[in-house]
């Protein structure tokens, strides 16, 4: 994307500067419209943009959790028994996480997930709008009062990942962060069984 953008920028600036260097005959209106407006304005920009639009949508489609059940079962999304469900509840200025696999357990500001398995995070809030963001695992998704949004994340390798809140939510905004602990299968089982906090 970056290279394409740079190429387009170079093209536009090149044409712009060339206009000052050129000392030929002035072209007429009709020819100008054909080259500049039809050619560059429509054909060129529309083809680039159409490609980008389609690419973007399919990329988005691939990132989706497995929704659209029934007749409209999702294409290319993983729905299956290995999906882990957790919930994240934001407040000014902390995060509280709960686990479907371990119903009585709650953790504050640390989210435990298994590595190598898709995790659906059900996100909501008790006060203002927040946004759940673990940059290395997925994009952002907002926590909106009265709504529950579900984000699919997946950590390829065990480890600690930094999580942030990404919607301004008052003076404690900067320090409103959390961590994600991705466990290997063994220690995840231990977590679920209650052997680990």
């Amino acid at each position, binding site marked *: 994307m970056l290279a394409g953008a740079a190429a387009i920028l170079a093209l536009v600036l090149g044409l712009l500067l060339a206009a000052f260097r050129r000392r030929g005959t002035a072209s007429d209106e009709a020819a100008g419209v054909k080259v500049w407006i039809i050619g560059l304005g429509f054909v060129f920009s529309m083809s680039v943009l159409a490609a980008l639009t389609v690419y973007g949508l399919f990329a988005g489609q691939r990132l989706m959790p*497995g929704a659209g059940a*029934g007749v409209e079962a999702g294409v290319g999304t993983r729905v299956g028994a290995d999906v882990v469900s957790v919930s994240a509840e934001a407040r000014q200025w902390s995060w509280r996480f709960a686990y479907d696999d371990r119903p009585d357990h709650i953790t504050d500001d640390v989210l435990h997930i298994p590595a190598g398995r898709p995790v659906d995070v059900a996100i909501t809030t008790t006060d203002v709008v927040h946004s759940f963001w673990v940059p290395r695992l997925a994009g952002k998704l907002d926590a909106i009062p009265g709504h529950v*949004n579900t984000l699919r994340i997946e950590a390829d390798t065990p480890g600690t990942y930094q999580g942030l809140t990404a919607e301004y939510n008052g003076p404690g905004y900067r320090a409103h962060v959390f961590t994600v602990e991705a466990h290997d299968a063994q220690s995840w089982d231990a977590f679920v069984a209650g052997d680990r906090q």
Partner: protein
Amino acid sequence: MKDVLRILLAPLLWLASFSATYGLHGIGCALGWPEIALWGASVFRVALLTAWLVAILIQVAILIVLHSDRFRAASAFTQWASLATAWVGLVAVLWTVYPVAVITACGGNG
């Protein structure tokens, strides 16, 4: 005023059909239309594709009407400009509503 309206008509209708489709999509998801089968697809898909088709037909109709002699604008410029914006309307409907044909219903980070 008629001349100005003539120029604005097609994009205005695009805006209306665009918003209406978006609204229909919201209602369809809320009412669980994707789960109801119809003609090999879902009610959701059929409804949205129909909406798209109707929107396209409206735009085509505007183009035809503007071309016809009866509704020709008095000045060449207004005629030209209204045809141009009518094409804008058609392309916009094709371009912005096409997701109804290809994207998964109601899925997403939601």
